[in-house]
C-alpha cells in the first residue's frame, strides 16, 4: 500500500548518487512527512527550546565555573571535574547509585510484571486485589518511609520479630551498613503500583486468539509467556524499564528522609549520587561543582539509555511493523 501511495503522487526515483538522493528527498513525499512530523511534534520542540534548553546548557556551563548560585560565575575549566575524580564521596555515591540501579531495575521489572500477571488472572474480586496492589505507590513519601522504618525496625519491628521467631538472621535493615541499600530496594518494591498497572494494561491488549492457538498446539505456560506475552508487551517493557532507570539514577529523597539523623549513613552506605549533588549545591553552595556532577551523571545515563534504545530494535515488537 505504501508503494501505491507513492505511485499516486510522484514518479519512482532511482536511488543512485547522494545528490540524486537529496533531490529525490526534496521532491518526494518524505519531505512532506518530515514537515508533518515536525508539525505534530512542534509543541514539544517549542517547550524544549523555551523551558529546557537554557537551564540545561546553563548547568553544563556552570560545571566549568566556580558558581555559588548568586554571584558571578568565573570560568575555571575542568577544575571541578578533576576535583570530582579525587573526591572519595563522589566515587562512593556513584557506586551506591549504581548498586541500587543494578539491583532495583531488574528486580522491579520482574516484580511489577509478576504482579501484573497475577492481576491479569480472571478471578472474582480482582478489582479489590488490583486496588490493594496499587495503593502503596500513592501513599505520600514521608508516611511510607516511616511505616517501613517502623515495620523493619531492628529494635521492635514486626519483621525482625518474625525472623527471630523463625530462627533466621535478623539484620539491622536501614541501620546496618550491609543491609541499608537492600532495605531501600525493598521499600521501592513495595511501591511498584505504577509500572504494574501499565504492564496490566499491556497484558490486557494481548489478543486472546494467540493464546488459544498456542494452547491448541500444546504450548506450556512458560512457552506462552516467553513467545507470546513478552514480545506482545515489549513496547510497554521498554517504557517501564526506561522510566525505572530514570527513577533509579535520581533516587535520594527516601534516603534523605529515613537517614536524616545520619545523612548517607550508616557509614556512607546510603549516600546516593543526587543526594550528594544536592548537598554540594544547597548546603555547601557549590553550584559549579554540583553542575559538573549533574552533567557527568547525564552523560553516563544518556549512554545507557541510547544502548537500551538501540538494543530495543532487537527485542521490542511493535505490531505495526511495515511488511
Amino acid at each position, binding site marked *: 500500500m505504501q508503494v501505491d501511495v507513492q505511485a499516486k503522487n510522484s514518479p519512482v526515483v532511482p536511488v543512485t548518487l547522494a545528490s540524486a538522493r537529496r533531490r529525490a528527498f526534496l521532491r518526494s513525499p518524505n519531505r512532506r512527512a518530515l514537515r508533518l512530523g515536525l508539525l505534530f*511534534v512542534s509543541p514539544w520542540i517549542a517547550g524544549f527550546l523555551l523551558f529546557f534548553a537554557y537551564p540545561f546548557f546553563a548547568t553544563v556551563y556552570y560545571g566549568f565555573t566556580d558558581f555559588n548560585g548568586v554571584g558571578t560565575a568565573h570560568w575555571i575549566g575542568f577544575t571541578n571535574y578533576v576535583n570530582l575524580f579525587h573526591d572519595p564521596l563522589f566515587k562512593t555515591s556513584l557506586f551506591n547509585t549504581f548498586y541500587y540501579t543494578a539491583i532495583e531495575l531488574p528486580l522491579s521489572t520482574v516484580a511489577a510484571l509478576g*504482579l501484573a500477571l497475577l492481576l491479569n488472572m480472571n478471578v472474582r474480586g480482582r478489582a479489590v486485589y488490583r486496588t490493594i496492589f496499587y495503593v502503596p505507590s500513592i501513599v505520600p513519601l514521608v508516611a511510607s518511609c516511616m511505616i517501613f522504618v517502623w515495620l523493619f525496625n531492628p529494635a521492635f519491628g514486626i519483621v525482625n520479630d518474625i525472623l527471630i521467631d523463625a530462627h533466621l538472621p535478623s539484620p539491622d535493615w536501614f541501620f546496618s551498613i550491609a543491609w541499608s541499600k537492600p532495605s531501600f530496594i525493598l521499600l521501592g518494591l*513495595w511501591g511498584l503500583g505504577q509500572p504494574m498497572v501499565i504492564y*496490566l494494561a499491556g497484558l490486557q491488549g494481548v489478543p486472546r486468539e494467540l493464546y488459544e492457538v498456542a494452547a491448541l498446539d500444546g504450548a506450556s505456560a512458560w512457552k506462552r509467556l516467553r513467545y507470546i506475552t513478552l514480545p506482545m508487551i515489549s513496547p510497554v517493557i521498554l517504557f517501564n524499564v526506561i522510566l525505572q532507570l530514570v527513577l533509579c539514577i535520581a533516587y535520594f529523597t527516601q534516603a534523605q528522609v529515613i537517614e536524616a539523623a545520619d545523612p548517607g549513613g550508616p557509614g556512607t552506605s546510603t549516600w546516593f549520587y543526587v543526594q550528594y549533588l544536592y548537598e554540594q549545591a544547597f548546603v555547601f553552595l557549590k553550584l559549579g561543582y554540583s553542575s559538573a556532577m549533574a552533567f557527568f551523571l547525564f552523560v553516563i545515563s544518556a549512554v545507557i539509555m541510547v544502548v537500551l534504545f538501540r538494543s530495543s530494535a532487537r527485542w521490542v515488537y511493535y505490531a505495526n511493523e511495515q511488511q
Partner: protein
Amino acid sequence: MPTSSSRSARRLGGSLAKHATLIAVSVLLGFPLFWMVITSLKTNPQSLAIPPLWWPHPFVWSNYPEMLSAVPFWRFVLNTLMYAGVTIVGVCVSSSLVAYGFSRIRWRGRDVLFQVMVGTLLIPFFATLIPLFTMYKQFHMVGWYLPLMIPTFLGSSVFSTFLLRQFFMTIPESLSDAARVDGANEFTIFSRIILPMAKPALATVILFQFIYCWNDFIGPLIYINNQVWYPLSLGLNLILGTYTTDWPWVMAAATAATAPIIVLFFFTQRTFIKGIAIQGTGVKG
C-alpha cells in the same frame, strides 16, 4: 478422558490456588497500609508505644476532624484539583499530538529526536533549579502554578508522551494508510481514527497525571509563594509540628490524602486496564 467432575475439581483447585496467591501477596503489600490506617487512630503516646500497639482501644476517630480543621483542608484540595485539571487538559492535548508525530509518521530524525526527548529526563531537577527558576522569573511566571501548568501544554510530560507513543506504535500502519489512500489529511487520521482507539491509553495518562499532581511536592514548593494557593501536599505539611512529630496526625494526613485516589482508582480501573482491544484482532496484511 478427564470426566467433567474431575475437570471442575481441577478448575476449583486452580481457582483456590489463584486466590491463595493473590491473598498472600495482598497481605504482604497491604500490611503496611493497615499499619498506616491503624496508627492514624491512636493517641500520640500510643503511636510511640514499644512494643507496637496493633489495635488501639478505643479508636481515636477525632484525629481526622481535628487534623482536617487545623488547616484549610478543602481549600488545599480545591487547589490541587485545579492544578490537576489544567495540567490534564494540557497533557492530553499536547502529549497526544507529539506522540502521534513520533509514532504514526515516518520522518527523518524522528527516532533520534525521540531519544533526545526521553533524554531530557536524565538531568535531575535540583541540578538545573537555579537557572530554571531564574528563567521563569524572567518570564514573570513565578509565584503561582504557571511554571507547572504552561509547559504541560507544550509536551513537557515526557512520561505521557512516551506512554502514548508506545501505544500508538502498536496500532497497525495499515489503518493509517487506508485512510491516507482515501485522501484523509493527517490531522483527521489523528483525531478521527487513532485518538478514539487510544481512549484507554489516554485514560491511563489522565489517571497518572492526576496522581502526579495530587502528590507533587517539590514543584509547588519551589514556585508557589502564597499559602492560600498551596496544594494538598504542601498544605498537609502545615499541620505537622516543628519539634514534635505527631504520628497519628501524619498517618491521618497520609490516609486522607490517599483515600480519594483509592476510590478514584477502584472505580475507574476498568476504563484503562481494559487496554486497547485493537491489537491484532484479525486485521491481516
